[in-house]
Every structure is written in structure tokens, then in C-alpha cells.
């Protein structure tokens, strides 16, 4: 096979679509032959392999030449991308919530949990949610990659139709001091849930172990933690009082901004104190000493909780830090606006 034929075959292999491939190869061969003829007559040289190499190098690599015939050099093009993102967000959110909901349901209904079961259910649920999210992402990408290639342009136009768009639908720039009621309501609900768990159901959090005739329970936190509960309650209550006040007044004032800064700062201090207090975790070698060895993997439980507790607390401190920064920034903006 001549060099030029090998080149044409290589371009053909890299062409994106089967349809028209033969035509493109035939036209390319014809063009290259014309170019050789031109070169021979222009330079007076004899056509040889060196000249072929030189000319093919100028023409470009087979991959590059084939790519110029690709009408869709992307998996999902700009026509469909906004709609793809819109669908992807919905699908991933639904999938993750469903998987986490199922894990939560299992954790609640499979009681009492036996030692590592709790860790397995929560860890498994998180793992399943991540796997399902990745699978959902792959499927959405696959569907849109196919749509990109089979939908005609006029069909795709419908997704980005600008005819019905009305500039009047643009929302006004929100006043930074306007209270976002939705956020506040969500915050109140979750703070109440936190208060209820902390004060009414706190003692059920721990590891349950059944032996032949006995039930053992080891709480997650030791008695040392109990001294922090009033302080946590105080911060939660202050948060709820502030939120209710904000809901009633619907506007941030310098006073409420300062209150928010204090509450967030108090939260950070308290979390830091909890983190730095020794012997706060209930899963210790002593607490596992009375349980028959065969029924519990004490070492694993202790490792998991002693490792995950500081990590969780550090994450909470980071989140609180962000909230504090937002509160200070809000205070600055409100004060600046007032002047």
C-alpha cells in the first residue's frame, strides 16, 4: 500500500461518522494527487517518498484532518448544554435524596441496631447515594450525547426558545437586608429538630449489643458531654428567637446583624470547646469491657467514632466560620447602607 493510501485509510478510521466516509476518502485522495502534481511541476522534482512525506506532513496528521469533518466536536454541545445542566441538577438531587432517605428509613426501622450495623447502614447509604449519583450522571450524559447527535437543529431550538422570553420576568435586584423567609423557616425547623433530639432522644444514640440473654447499650457520648447540653440549648434557643424576630420584621437591622454575629461566634467557641474536651466519646475500651468479645467489633467501632468525631467537629467549625463571615459581611453592609 502506498504512503498516500495508508494516510487516507488512517484519516477514514478517525472520521466521526460512517456516512459519507467513502466519499471523503475518495475526495481526499484526489486532492492529494492534485497537490503532488502541482508540487512536481512547480519544483521540477521527481515524485518520491520524501516528497510524499513532506506534503502529508504539511497537510496535517490524519486525526487533525478527520477532526475537521466532525460537525459535533463535543459530547454535548452548546445548544443542549443549558438544558442538560437543568435536567442533571434535578436528577442528581432526586437520586441522592431518595438513596439517603432509604438509608435513613433503614436506620430507623432496623432497631435495635447491633454494633456495626449502624455504621454499615449509614456508610452503605452514603456509598449507595454516591454510586447512584455517578450512575445517574453517566446515564444523563449518555442520553444527551445521543440527543445531540440525533435531534435536528430546529427541535433543539425549542429548548432555548427566546421568543417567549419577557424582560419583565427579570427579578429586581434583591435588597441585601431583606430576610429570606424560606431560609429562616428551614433554619427554625432544623434547629427545633436538633433541640428535640438533644433533649428528648439523646439517650438512644449509641451502640446496642445483644448477647444470648442480655442487651448492652453504650452511648456515643460520655457523661462529660452532658455539661455542654445547656449551652447548646441556649445557642439553639437564641437562634430560634432571632429567627422568629426576623420572620416577624422581615428586614435585617444592625441590631439583628450583631445578634447573629454573636450567636455564630458562640457556636464556634462551643464547638471548639467540645472538640478539645478529653474523654467526651463514650466508645472507650472500658465501656466495651463488659461486653462479650464475640458480639462486638469494639476496636473498629472505637476507631471509626474516635476518628470521625473530630473530623465532623472540624467540618462544623468550618461551616460555622463561613456563617460567621457571612454574618459579619451582612453587618458591614447594613451599617454601610445606614450611613
Amino acid at each position, binding site marked *: 500500500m502506498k504512503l498516500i493510501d495508508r494516510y487516507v485509510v488512517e484519516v477514514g478510521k478517525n472520521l466521526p461518522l460512517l456516512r*459519507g466516509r467513502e*466519499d*471523503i476518502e*475518495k*475526495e*481526499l485522495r*484526489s*486532492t492529494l*494527487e*492534485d*497537490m503532488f502534481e502541482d508540487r512536481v511541476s512547480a519544483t521540477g522534482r521527481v515524485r518520491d517518498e520524501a516528497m510524499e512525506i513532506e506534503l502529508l506532513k504539511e*497537510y*496535517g496528521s490524519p486525526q*487533525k*484532518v478527520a477532526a*475537521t*469533518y466532525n*460537525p459535533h466536536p463535543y459530547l454535548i454541545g452548546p445548544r443542549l448544554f443549558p438544558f442538560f445542566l437543568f435536567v442533571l441538577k434535578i436528577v442528581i438531587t432526586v437520586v441522592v435524596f431518595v438513596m439517603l432517605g432509604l438509608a435513613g428509613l433503614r436506620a430507623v426501622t432496623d432497631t435495635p441496631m447491633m454494633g456495626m450495623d449502624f455504621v454499615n447502614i449509614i456508610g452503605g447509604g452514603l456509598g449507595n447515594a454516591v454510586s447512584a449519583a455517578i450512575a445517574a450522571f453517566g446515564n444523563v450524559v449518555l442520553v444527551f450525547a445521543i440527543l445531540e447527535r440525533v435531534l435536528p437543529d430546529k427541535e433543539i431550538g425549542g429548548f432555548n426558545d427566546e421568543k417567549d422570553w419577557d424582560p419583565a420576568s427579570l427579578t429586581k435586584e434583591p435588597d441585601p437586608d431583606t430576610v429570606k423567609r424560606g431560609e429562616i423557616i428551614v433554619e427554625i425547623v432544623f434547629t427545633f429538630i436538633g433541640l428535640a433530639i438533644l433533649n428528648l432522644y439523646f439517650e438512644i444514640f449509641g451502640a446496642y449489643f445483644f448477647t444470648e440473654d442480655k442487651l448492652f447499650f453504650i452511648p456515643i457520648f460520655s457523661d462529660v458531654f452532658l455539661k455542654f447540653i445547656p449551652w447548646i440549648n441556649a445557642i439553639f434557643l437564641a437562634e430560634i428567637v432571632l429567627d422568629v424576630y426576623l420572620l416577624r420584621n422581615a428586614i435585617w437591622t444592625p441590631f439583628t446583624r450583631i445578634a447573629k454575629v454573636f450567636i455564630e461566634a458562640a457556636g464556634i467557641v462551643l464547638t471548639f470547646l467540645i472538640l478539645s474536651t478529653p474523654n467526651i466519646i463514650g466508645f472507650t475500651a472500658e465501656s466495651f469491657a463488659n461486653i462479650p468479645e464475640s458480639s462486638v467489633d469494639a476496636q473498629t467501632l472505637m476507631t471509626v467514632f474516635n476518628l470521625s468525631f473530630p473530623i465532623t467537629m472540624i467540618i462544623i467549625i468550618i461551616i460555622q466560620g463561613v456563617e460567621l463571615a457571612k454574618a459579619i459581611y451582612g453587618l458591614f453592609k447594613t451599617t454601610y447602607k445606614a450611613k
Partner: protein
Amino acid sequence: MANTESLDNVVLELRRGVIVLAVLSQLNDEQYGYSLLKLLSDQGLEVDQGTLYPLLRRLETQGLLESVWKLEEARPRRYYVISAEGKKLLPKLKKEWAGIVSVMNGMLA
């Protein structure tokens, strides 16, 4: 270096915009790809093969060009010519082009 690259990119964009008009205007008589490339080049418009051939296929798909294979000097060549639809479009494109040139001349004067 960066300036040269920017200039090259802008020039490329400018040319890309006029290639369709240039190609349609030169295909009242049928031409095969390489002869069209030389025809454009002889008149001062250098077009890369990687741009021209896919463009010819695209214009044919859009119905603005027609093509036919012919055997010449023992070599098959694909000849392109402007279609009836392309002929209807060309005067409108020329008018648009004249308008753009006039506006730009005014701006750049």
C-alpha cells in the same frame, strides 16, 4: 508572541465569516475542491484545506451547492456548483456584505 497569536485568531475569525460568500460567488462554474482552493488563492484569499472541504460538504447538505463525481485523467474528482437555492441566497448575501463593508468603512475612516 501573545499579540501575534491574538492577531492570527482575529484574522482567522474575520476570514471564516467571508468564506461562505467567497465560495458561493466562485461556484457559478463548477470547480473541484483543489481547483477552487487555487482559484480563491489566486484572488488573494488563502483558505486552509481543513476549512474548505468540510465547508463544501456542509453547504451541500444545506442545499446551497450541488456536487457530482467526474472521471478526469483517470482520476475521480468531485465537482461542486452553486444550486438554485444557493443562487437565490447569493444576491442577499452580497447585499449584506456591501452593507457591512459600508458600515465598517464609515467606522474605520
